[in-house]
């Protein structure tokens, strides 16, 4: 455990009221288990058994992960959610690799969380966040594939009355080597499903992979080009009605009253219902009618004390947390940074801040629910089927066997759909209209103003040098919001949020890449009322901006090249250094840049992977930035699908640079001011730089790829901007500094 300076309770400072999740006992157990803390709670990953379990179409399950139809179609079960990141295809590749099946016959399906709970969590964790989709399930899904292969071979051997050791499988065909006899998986699947699974299976070495490790095409592309793909928003059920919702614009506020009579005669309106104590929904034949009526519904809010909160009051409160006299949790330390700074020959200090950000998934939040006193079924896009299940369980009040969640394709997740607020709301509405399927869809405005925002922080960094310009101390003091405090308080460590130190931690999956003789990394936790959530890259994003921009500031103070300055501190972190060197080499660091082009560089570790980025930019009129070229390197240990990893790397620059240039949600009168893409913009194709990826998997560990690269996007560009202009930007987004894309 990391050291800490103070006891917990007094440190979790809050502005005004804070809404804590209320969980009943049953939901708590499941919710906790999904967080990974409770894998012992009934997690049982079976790899087959004597009684045949059948898929809905009657095809036999060889085990929970593999169903094989008589026509040799291989159905691979995927528990994690696909939201664009390619995990569906990557996980299928890992199962297929060990199964030795014909990739052209592979299809996938999602088991439901209800089925999983009924089978003692046969598919393990459904949670798809933290770039964990592949890295935390690769071992057991590969075993699922390998176990099925062994059983299929055994079934063929039994039929032929030969030893299984004389048989081999490739491309869904089993061959008896001595005689050359063959059969297919589809022919023996029924018999295989009746066999006892082997106690242990040996997995292939990644160097021997033929399906995994290849840049295969995604399995879900065609329907995404024809309009056939069904997202949550597209669900249609017989007799379905549509709901539009308005939650109190001030977080923590309540509905005082609403005047239903004013809209009840409007076309298509069926019912106006309260949702919890903070929201009102209009149910109508179409969503357009529901939304149009809701816009005209007079609602009186009890906004509460939070209505006094603004960006200015939050900024002031966070700034107070930068004062060393205020309590803070220590996340990483060695030596005595404060003493070393006090006696240093030279010191450099800077204060940075990073704003709230909305996820702005292209598909606004939605869920469809059919509730009867006997059954509650939910259809939605979710990053965590089990959390959605737990939410439906709690909101419906029904027992687990009467609840289920049907997962659909997500129109973006980025962390937002790991939350279940929209599921709870939809169940609460449907419960008031039993027997009628209700589709709840948020307007973009509702989505923008009721996010679970990228947490807000400020950071004071102090570096100290000896007389020879060696960095002898670094004090990194964060002040601001904790996500875990709000969404998963049971994961706090004596009050401290370990996730706050992503990218600057001592060790683990998001470790700092620099060795400084005297280091102090601490977090003064201050939790405004605006609800935070996990956000693509989340704490890595601001920590990488703070640290990597400041490293350039330190290099400048020491009169050294930013790359050389970093290298001297990275001797004990060879993997961090390797990706940094890779981008430096490819961008041509140390060689003259083309006329008018300036370079910046950055590195960070996050989600178990080592990443670095280098940018080439030009600046017009001191404020118009054109990003010409990005080079990005990633070492995730192993690469399951290089084509998809490349897309995640390129996409990370869209998310990271959108945040840098345009992001930022501001608070006024307790509510978020931005309402749509006109006030919360996102990068377009004309602003997209060319991204060159350097994949450098060094093996021996499994890191994630969906998020870490976002961390280096902003600091690489900001460091290049300083090189071009001599101006150091420390508050964001850039639009607030009148800096824009050229």
């Amino acid at each position, binding site marked *: 455990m990391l050291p800490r300076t103070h006891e917990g309770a007094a440190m979790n400072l809050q502005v005004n009221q804070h809404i804590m999740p209320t969980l009943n006992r049953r939901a708590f157990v499941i919710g906790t288990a999904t967080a990974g803390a409770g894998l012992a709670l009934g997690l049982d990953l079976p790899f087959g058994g004597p009684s045949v379990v059948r898929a809905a179409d009657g095809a036999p399950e060889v085990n929970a992960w593999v169903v094989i139809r008589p026509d040799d179609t291989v159905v691979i079960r995927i528990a994690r959610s696909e939201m664009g990141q390619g995990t569906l295809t990557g996980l299928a590749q890992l199962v297929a690799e060990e199964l030795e099946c014909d990739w052209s016959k592979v299809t996938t399906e999602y088991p439901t969380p209800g089925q999983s709970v009924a089978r003692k969590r046969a598919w393990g964790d459904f949670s798809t966040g933290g770039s964990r989709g592949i890295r935390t399930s690769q071992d057991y899904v590969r075993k699922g594939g390998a176990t099925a292969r062994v059983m299929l071979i055994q079934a063929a051997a039994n039929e032929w009355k030969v030893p299984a050791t004389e048989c081999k499988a490739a491309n869904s065909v089993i061959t008896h080597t001595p005689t050359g006899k063959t059969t297919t998986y589809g022919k023996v699947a029924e018999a295989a499903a009746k066999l006892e699974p082997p106690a242990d299976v040996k997995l292939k070495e990644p160097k021997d992979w033929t399906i995994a490790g290849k840049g295969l095409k995604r399995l879900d592309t065609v329907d995404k080009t024809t309009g056939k793909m069904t997202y949550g928003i597209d669900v249609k059920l017989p007799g379905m009605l549509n709901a539009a919702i308005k939650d109190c614009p001030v977080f923590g506020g309540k509905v005082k009253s609403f005047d239903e009579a004013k809209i009840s005669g409007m076309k298509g309106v069926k019912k106006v219902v309260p949702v919890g104590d903070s929201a009102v929904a209009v149910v109508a034949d179409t969503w357009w009618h529901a939304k149009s009526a809701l816009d005209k519904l007079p609602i009186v809010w009890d906004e509460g004390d939070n209505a006094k909160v603004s960006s200015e009051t939050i900024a002031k409160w966070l700034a107070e947390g930068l004062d060393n006299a205020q309590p803070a949790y220590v996340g990483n330390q060695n030596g005595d940074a404060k003493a070393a700074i006090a006696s240093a020959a030279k010191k450099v200090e800077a204060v940075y801040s990073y704003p709230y950000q909305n996820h702005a998934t*292209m598909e606004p939040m939605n869920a469809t629910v059919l509730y009867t006193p006997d059954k509650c079924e939910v259809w939605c896009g979710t990053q965590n089927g089990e959390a959605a299940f737990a939410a439906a369980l709690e909101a419906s009040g029904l027992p687990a066997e009467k609840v289920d969640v049907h997962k659909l394709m997500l129109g973006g997740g980025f962390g937002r759909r790991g939350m279940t607020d929209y599921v709870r709301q939809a169940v609460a509405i449907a419960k008031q209209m039993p027997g009628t399927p209700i589709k709840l869809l948020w307007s973009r405005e509702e989505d923008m103003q009721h996010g679970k925002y990228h947490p807000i922080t400020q950071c004071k960094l102090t570096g100290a040098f000896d007389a020879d310009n060696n960095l002898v101390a670094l004090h990194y003091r964060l002040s601001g919001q904790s996500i875990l405090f709000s969404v998963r308080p049971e994961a706090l460590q004596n009050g401290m949020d370990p996730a706050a130190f992503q990218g600057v931690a001592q060790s683990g999956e998001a470790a700092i890449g620099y060795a400084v003789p005297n280091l102090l990394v601490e977090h003064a936790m201050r939790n405004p009322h605006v609800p935070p959530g996990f956000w693509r890259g989340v704490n890595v994003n601001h920590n990488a901006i703070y640290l990597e921009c400041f490293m350039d500031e330190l290099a400048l103070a020491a009169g050294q090249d930013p790359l050389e300055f970093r290298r001297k501190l990275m001797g004990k972190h060879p993997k961090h250094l390797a990706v940094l060197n890779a981008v430096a080499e490819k961008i041509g660091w140390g060689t003259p840049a083309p006329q008018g082009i300036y370079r910046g560089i950055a590195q960070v570790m996050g989600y178990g992977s080592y990443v670095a980025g280098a940018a080439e930019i030009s600046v017009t009129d001191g404020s118009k930035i054109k990003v010409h070229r990005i080079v990005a390197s990633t070492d995730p240990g192993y690469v399951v699908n290089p084509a998809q990893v490349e897309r995640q790397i390129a996409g990370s620059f869209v998310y990271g640079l959108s945040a840098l240039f345009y992001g930022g949600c501001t608070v006024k009168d307790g509510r978020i001011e931005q309402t749509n893409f006109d006030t919360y913009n996102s990068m377009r194709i004309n602003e997209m730089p060319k991204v060159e990826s350097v994949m450098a998997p060094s093996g021996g560990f499994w890191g994630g790829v969906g998020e870490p690269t976002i961390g280096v996007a902003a600091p690489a560009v900001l460091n290049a901007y300083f090189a071009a202009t001599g101006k150091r930007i420390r508050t964001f987004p850039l639009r607030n500094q009148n800096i824009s894309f050229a």
Partner: protein
Amino acid sequence: MANLKINGKTTNVDVEDDTPLLWAIRENVGLTGTKYGCGIAQCGACTVHIDGVAMRSCGVTVSEVAGKDITTIEGLAAGGVMHKVQLAWIASDVPQCGYCQSGMIMAVAALLKENPKPTDDDINDAITNICRCGTFQQVREAIHAAANA
């Protein structure tokens, strides 16, 4: 009531004149490939063709398009043959979450009709759809591939 000619088929939909075309297409006609993203013609997820021109269907009312030829993503393939933009999209494995891609594909198909060999600058000027996953690199590659198909 409005008569909407969508993908070659005329449908009489029972909606108010000021209903956005997007919602008539999705809820009354039942074609859900056209997506809702913002409702204020910012993001382009709802792009359809109206008389061959790419338009954001959230920003036009049904009364404005009565009698005009409306094409949605479901109608882009002609006679069961996929449009070259769709084929290029599949070849370049463009979509990530895919939610914005109907609109993106419709915008690109209209661009190529008007400008069969767009330059990068032409693409920058014409394609203004938002994609939060960040598929732009593959979008650009696929536009050039479709132009050369």
